[in-house]
């Protein structure tokens, strides 16, 4: 029994530093992503998205951005066909991915769309995020694809993606709330 107790104490001593190191840097400011408004407008047979999102980075994400880490913000839009007695069916899913980068010499923030390749630079993070959170007339889906006699609902969400990082870091970021930036689903019925 004494030996077992000694063994447990030794294991605790071994694990304690790792646990302490793990629990460090947990006092960061939390960020938030929020979809303020969103709507689809039929323009020339194409449903176009207009949306306003408020994107506030957490202190940790901000620290990473200022340290040269490229952040990836992802907007996910889902078109769901509503069924009466059956589970709803996902008709289409659109993912808009943007990269946010800080350039140290010019001290400007770059917003780069991975979907279109468009990029723009901003003097402040605020203007970069503000620009990022403003979606205007973005073609989403051809209306002809949607069934005329069906009801659809649309939902939109913004999230800070960590997929681009290496797996070990993803594993570490997974356990940290500062990297878990994700808005609630903003959902509305498609008016046709």
């Amino acid at each position, binding site marked *: *029994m004494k*030996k*077992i107790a000694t*063994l447990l104490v*030794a*294991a605790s*001593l*071994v*694990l304690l*530093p*790792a646990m302490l*190191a*793990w629990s*460090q*840097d947990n006092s960061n400011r939390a960020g938030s992503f929020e979809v303020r408004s969103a709507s689809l407008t039929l323009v020339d047979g194409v449903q176009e998205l207009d949306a306003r999102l408020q994107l506030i980075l957490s202190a940790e994400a901000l*620290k*990473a951005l*200022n*340290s*040269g*880490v490229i952040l990836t913000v992802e907007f996910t839009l889902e078109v769901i066909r509503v069924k009466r007695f059956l589970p709803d069916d996902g008709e289409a899913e659109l993912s808009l991915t943007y990269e946010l980068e800080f*350039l*140290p*010499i*010019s*001290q*400007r923030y*770059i917003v780069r769309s991975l979907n279109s390749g468009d*990029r723009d*630079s*901003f*003097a402040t993070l605020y*203007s970069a995020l503000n620009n990022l959170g403003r979606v205007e007339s973005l073609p989403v889906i051809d209306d002809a694809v949607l069934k005329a006699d069906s009801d659809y609902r649309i939902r939109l969400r913004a999230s800070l993606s960590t997929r681009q990082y*290496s*797996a*070990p*870091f*993803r*594993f*570490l970021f997974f356990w940290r709330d500062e990297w878990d930036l994700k808005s609630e689903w903003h959902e509305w019925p498609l008016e046709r």
Partner: protein
Amino acid sequence: MASRTIKRLFYGVLGALGVALALFALYLLGETTDRTADLESQYINILFVNIVGVLALLALTVGNLWRLLGEFRNRQPGARLKARMVGMFVGLAVVPLVIVFYFSVKFINSGIDNWFSVEVEKGLDDAIALSRAAMETRKRNDLAMTVKIADRLTDVVPRRLIFELSMMRRESGASEITIFGRNSRIIATSSDRAASSLPSELKDEVLLQVRQNRLFVSFDELESEIRTAVPFASRTNREIIGVVQAHFPISERISAMADSVSSSFNDYKTALYYRDSLKRLFSLTLTVVLLLSLLGSIYGALVLSRRLVAPIEDLVAGTRAVARGNFDTRLSAPSRDELGFLVNSFNDMTQRLSTASRQATLSQSLVEAERANLEVILARLSTGVVSLESDLTIRTANPAASAILNVDLENKVGQSLPDISVGEPLLEQFVDVARVHLQDGETEWREQIVLRGEVGRRVLTCACTALPGDEETESGFVVVFDDITALLQAQRDAAWGEVARRLAHEIKNPLTPIQLSAERLRRRYLHTLEAGEAEVLDRATHTIVQQVEAMKEMVNAFSDYARAPDMDIDRFSLEALAHEVVDLYRAQESDVSIVLKIDANLPELEADAGRVRQILHNLIRNAIEALENETNGVIEVKIGSTEVLEVEAIQIVVADNGPGFQTGSVSQVFDPYVTTKPKGTGLGLAIVKKLVEEHAGTIDAENRDEGGAIIRIKLPVNEAAREAMTAMLPGRVEQRRERA
């Protein structure tokens, strides 16, 4: 045995595979942590596998430790040794592992920290600052140039605006200059790009700043240019009517250097940002490695100790089994090492013990069989056999000994023979004789002993011999004795039979001529002689005839005694026969009272009715003759069922209240010509005895305590009982044979 080997091989292969997989997973974990492998994306899966491995090992280890604790508490053989070995192994493994872990973490942390240095960081910061400063200078110059262009353009008439703008663009080295009017409308533009390309639009941030009457300048690293924007005033009233936006390209060399500095700075800062995470990552990987190694070591120690101790446990279990007497215990040899040698030696030992045990058991069973045979023989022997310790304690005794000495010696094994003999006259005399010899130091002696008891005397031929003993135990004696009373009696009976036969032959023949001669003398001379002489003749011839008749009777009696006709066995009612005989004597004898008592439910007797009738006649006549001079003579005749050594029999008891037998002659009352009566021939009871023995019955006589004599006869009830009694009393068979 084979299944055990296969099982062990299976678990061995499984364990080796597990260890190989664990090592491979650890290797992959290390590789992915190092970010050099393509398996980086599988890091989480590999980590998960390793953590599952840790948990599995933890469960196995805890389970095994718990089992070991249970064994320790239950004081199972080998548990203490196993615990000691596990402790030793774990101690040997844990200390280096913890030390390695500690220093690994330390080295990794310091190694990662060494990637970063204040000097490098300061250099990069300075490089950034320098780049920024250089760009600031350039930006100021370009901004100043833009302001100058805007001022000069203010005075240009609209129709020459484009021309002047182009001139100024070329002079200033700008790649594009555009004049925006109100509402960001393009008034004029000049660009070194193709004419088809549109001029850059005015960005919100530019507009916002210019509307506040502020100058705008920024370095656009993406486009490798400096963008400036200044207000554009009206030529007439100097009112701000638009914006002049200019793009000044950065040379490729400077742009490349700026990109390089920027990239290096970002990489360094990114690495700096990842530093803590990297430390955690390596610490986590190391912790997993440590736990895997630690738990693997403990589990390995448990398995190894169990495997090492298993042969010892088997040996302990085998030894206990041998101690319990199970000599067939065989252990499987674990290996060819010293333990294997020990196990093989144990197996050899148990095999020899088993062989010895089997031989001992065989010998014991042979001895037991011999002993049982001997006991059967002794039990069936009519010869008494008593084995004694040197202090005359009974070691064994057979039933015949008990029967001869009239004491239950079989149930008194272990008791002292002299102590038992108290109150047992036959045994007492026997012990006295034996003691005399033993006190004289005679261990080998032979003697004929005459024992006198209440029912008569018994003649024993007795032989004693010393039993073989070893040096430690004192030797005893075995006394063999035979009751030869019956044999002597038979010899006597045979002698008497021979005498009777010769008497009948030698005496009876002349009697008839004597009688005839006497009767002739009487007939011829009685009437010729004078009265006096005639009377003498008459009396003499009468006496001769009378005595000849008497002699004839006597000779006939002897003849009857010597010659036994064939038995006529038949089933008949003894009750009726007894009534018939007794009634005959009741009618003849008025002075004697004859009482007949017969048990109810008396079975029929299977015997020679004539002989039984003669037995009853002789006994009653004998009793009547004994009561001749007695008044109030009473004869009691009792007939009932009985058993002789568990054989069904009928007992006939004839008792009288006469003078009884003479003291000392009780044992000879059945001898021929032994009588105490004046009229008796002395053959009555001898014939009775002979008839009884012909029926395999027993007869004994004694004096009654209240006076008188009593004779008891026990006759087997049927042929089967007769056979049984004949078998039990073999002496009778000999007698019967002799007499036959």
